């Protein structure tokens, strides 16, 4: 009945020395190291965020996030009040504000967004909570003035 153990690539014992990440891409001379900043679940920030690396947020933030060339992930515990500009935006937590994805926006099943989405590709998982607009029209058209002027009024939480 017992299945004979197959040769394993991983070992339960702690590694004796720092091991290189097996999935890490080969490093080149160019500065291609993918940095990701993480804002932990106990952190509360009031103010705008900008930078040049990917960002994952599990905490609370009131303010604008602007990382137009990078990925932004709002984790399950993340709560954002403000607009978000990113290359790829993934929302698993809660956002009250407009989302501008240069390439793509993903709203996970656990995510809630009260605001408008502007991105050429949008994926909203069934069960996610969203009320607002989705603008997938070509950038030159949408860049003029997305309909975010009027705040979203939420009559009843769902």
């Amino acid at each position, binding site marked *: 009945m017992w299945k004979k153990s197959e040769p394993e690539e991983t070992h339960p014992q702690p590694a004796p020395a720092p091991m290189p990440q097996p999935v890490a891409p080969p490093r080149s001379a160019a500065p291609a190291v993918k940095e990701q900043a993480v804002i932990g679940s106990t952190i509360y920030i009031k103010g705008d965020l900008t930078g040049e690396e990917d960002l994952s947020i599990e905490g609370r933030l009131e303010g604008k996030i602007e990382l137009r060339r990078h990925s932004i992930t709002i984790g399950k515990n993340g709560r954002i009040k403000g607009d978000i500009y990113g290359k790829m935006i993934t929302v698993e937590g809660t956002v009250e504000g407009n989302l501008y994805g240069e390439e793509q926006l993903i709203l996970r099943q656990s995510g809630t967004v009260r605001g408008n989405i502007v991105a050429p590709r949008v994926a909203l998982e069934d069960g996610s909570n969203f*009320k607002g*607009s*989705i603008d*997938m029209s070509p950038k030159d058209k*949408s860049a003029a*003035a997305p*309909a975010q002027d*009027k705040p979203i009024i*939420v009559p009843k939480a769902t």
Partner: protein
Amino acid sequence: MVTKPHPEPVVHASLGLQSLCERLQNAAGCDILELGPVRSGNVQFWSRFSPYIYIADLRSSLPLPVPVPPPEEDSEFVEPDWDQLLALPEGRGYNVVLAWDLLNYMELPAVSSLVKYLKKFCQPGAILFTLIFDQKQMPDEITIYGIADESHLRYEYATSDMRACPRHQPRALGIVMSQFRTADSFRLRNGVVEYLFEYEGTHTASAV
């Protein structure tokens, strides 16, 4: 005839959706007002038209059926606060309104009130797509419609309970939907009539 909601999603043909898609192929833009909830597959489906979609999800904010005083009472019908319920951004005109089966859960005065409000946000020629039940009973709650393909809808029933169906008749609908003409209608085998109402008004909401 599907009179009893099935607990599992059921796929039905949708000639109305097919007709709508054909119209959109030639449309200059695609500004969609979705009165139902967000559906991943639907957003994906519409993405081929590079759309602007506003998801109003009235199901979550409107008490349904919309209360209307009985005819024998003198009390007036109190119009829902559509401004608050829909929260539509100003200055945007839609050329598609997806009402799905919502109108079945409203008496005609409420339908009239909603349509009157929506006209302010419709471009001339806008299409309102709706499914009207023509059977004695209908699902107790609004059904979610997933787009399976250009000519099929997936009915995702929220409940297996049933309620009496108002059976809005074409003529009555035509009256309450002033300035909308019936551009297409399709009677399906499942007891649903799909309507494409076209807005004939000249009011132009300034599309962005």
